[in-house]
């Protein structure tokens, strides 16, 4: 029962029909004042053309660092990047900064969480869009570029784009600003859009509009999207596949239905359990996950989730590997030592509620 884009036009796929984006064993470490931090520790995933992949996690999970590393934004003297990122078969991690600049914006675009601080306050929105266009193709003259900018603003639902293209970022409301950022991202017709918490800073009614917009773009343009978020509600609305990250590693990976209806990792149970559901009666006590997300400087030995897991046992002192534990679903991976039968029992904390602990 997975969701497929029904009317998407033939999107740009990898050569020979392979995945659009293939990430293999990505590892990102930073040297900080307090020691070495392994922000991303062996992440693997693929992105098919026209697909929406959600990466879910909290602070310190490594989700944002993963996303930024895809286009090389984390490259710096104190960062150490290993692994492979292939776009349509082309390896990105070995590209020079110059070569990568050609990919950024034009093949893979990225938008960020806070549209107020993500746009330069001293230039008009139009100027910033034009800048993106002309940076990749200097033959485009200013007038044409401006025309394109106006079209883009209109395409993302900004009213009166002719006038608004000359406005500064702070003259837009929050939702309109995020739309403008999306317009800037689309300027060069990329095949992949990475959206890092695009709606976290927005009101819920605006969030719904922006998600709708992203979904629209995904369907009408076949724009493959990687959506970084901590909000499972957002995931349920737009994602096709989900990656759950914790402590720099992927702890569960599967289709949308897999994650919501057959979750295999206790952390996922915890996230699902602590959600408030407006369409269900309220529990007496909000199910919680005790403890706090681990500090990457001081990761627990063995399974990173162990200190917070009520179901931990002896074997958890060894780091579990990410593998498919369900014979019928080889693509649904998780990182937990519990066997499938036990998981099914333990996660059903109430007759129709999945969670980590039994409610008090």
């Amino acid at each position, binding site marked *: *029962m997975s*969701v497929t884009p029904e009317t998407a036009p033939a999107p740009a796929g990898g050569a020979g029909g392979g995945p659009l984006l293939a990430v293999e064993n990505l590892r990102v470490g930073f040297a900080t004042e307090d020691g070495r931090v392994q922000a991303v520790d062996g992440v693997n995933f693929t992105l098919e053309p026209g697909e929406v992949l959600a990466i879910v996690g*909290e*602070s310190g999970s490594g989700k944002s660092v993963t996303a930024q590393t895809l286009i090389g934004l984390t490259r710096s003297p104190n960062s150490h990047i290993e692994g492979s990122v292939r776009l349509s078969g082309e390896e990105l991690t070995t590209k020079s900064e110059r070569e990568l600049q050609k990919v950024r914006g034009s093949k893979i675009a990225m938008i960020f969480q806070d549209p107020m601080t993500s746009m330069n306050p001293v230039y008009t929105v139009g100027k910033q869009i034009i800048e993106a266009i002309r940076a990749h193709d200097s033959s485009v003259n200013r007038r044409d570029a401006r025309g394109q900018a106006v079209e883009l603003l209109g395409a993302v639902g900004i009213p009166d784009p002719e006038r608004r293209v000359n406005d500064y970022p702070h003259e837009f409301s*929050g939702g309109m600003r995020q739309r403008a950022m999306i317009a800037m991202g689309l300027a060069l017709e990329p095949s992949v859009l990475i959206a890092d918490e695009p709606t976290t800073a927005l*009101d*819920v*009614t*605006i*969030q*719904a509009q922006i*998600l709708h917009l992203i979904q629209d773009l995904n369907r009408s343009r076949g724009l493959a999207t990687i959506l970084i978020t*901590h*909000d*499972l*509600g*957002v*995931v*349920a*609305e737009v994602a096709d596949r989900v990656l759950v990250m914790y402590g720099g590693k992927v702890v569960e990976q599967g289709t*949308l*239905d897999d994650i*919501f*209806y057959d979750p295999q990792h206790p952390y996922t149970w*915890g*996230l*699902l359990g*602590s*959600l*408030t*559901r*407006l*369409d269900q*009666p*309220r*529990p*007496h*006590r*909000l*199910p*919680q*996950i*005790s403890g*706090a*997300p681990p500090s990457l400087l001081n990761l627990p030995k063995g399974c990173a989730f162990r200190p917070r897991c009520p179901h931990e046992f002896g074997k958890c002192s060894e780091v579990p590997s990410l593998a498919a534990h369900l014979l019928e679903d080889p693509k649904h991976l998780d990182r937990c030592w519990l066997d499938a039968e036990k998981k099914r029992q333990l996660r059903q904390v109430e007759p129709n509620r999945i969670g980590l602990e039994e409610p008090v």
Partner: protein
Amino acid sequence: MSDLGTTSTAGGPLLEVTDLVKHFPIKSGLLIDREVDQVRAVDGVSFTVNKGETLGLVGESGSGKSTTCRVVLQLLKPTSGSVKFEGQEIAGKSRRDLRPLRREMQMIFQDPYASLNPRKRIGQIVGDQLKIQKIASGKELRTKVEGLLERVGLSPEHYNRFPHEFSGGQRQRIGIARALALGPKLVFCDEPVSALDVSIQAQIVNLLDDLQDEMGLTYVFVAHDIGVVRHISDRIAVMNQGKIVETGDADQVCEHPRDAYTKKLLAAVPIPDPRESRARRERATAG
């Protein structure tokens, strides 16, 4: 959720707000500032909060919910309207007259990173008010503060640590300890969990629930996350552009909203259930 039931039989009204108005003037003019318009942040708001209950105040940014809290607490002077605490009118009172009331009404703030003075130790942050209000000092003060820290789930040994040594969730606990130090009757919680990780939010919400039962507190809980508000509140008031558009029992408002804006707000909340979410979308395109 208070054990005392979900309707207003929880106790007599602790707080009565009537026609509260707060306008911020917009000034313009070449040489002299003239008031050309006003920002009607709070535009005639009325509600009551009964003893022991939790009133949830829901709205989006710009709805006026945070400003309402600050005006009720007299942190901002109201433009007009009445605020009665335990039957006593407090709107427009002088700072001196309000001082004893500060013990009874407190506030927990949203940003755990900005609301704690980074130069003070947490023992001081929590305990200073006890000193200022001359309730305790010296060893007695220390014992009291350590007790509070323990109550909110922190270790009393952390008395001498600085805020930056704690995580967001822990800092919010410190903020709660600070708000409860004087033993208030009414606590305003202004988006207390919005800035926290999802797995920590539930912990803090449960903590607030527990403390309410233990200490007989009355809450006004302000947030934009309706799910969380509904969980902790007995009654909910929905705000839009400075006005309250709907009030009622928490479950009632969420399941059977009457106002158009409330309906719009509820419809926008993402349902964390793919099948339900799809079904709702199909209903929306069909209907």
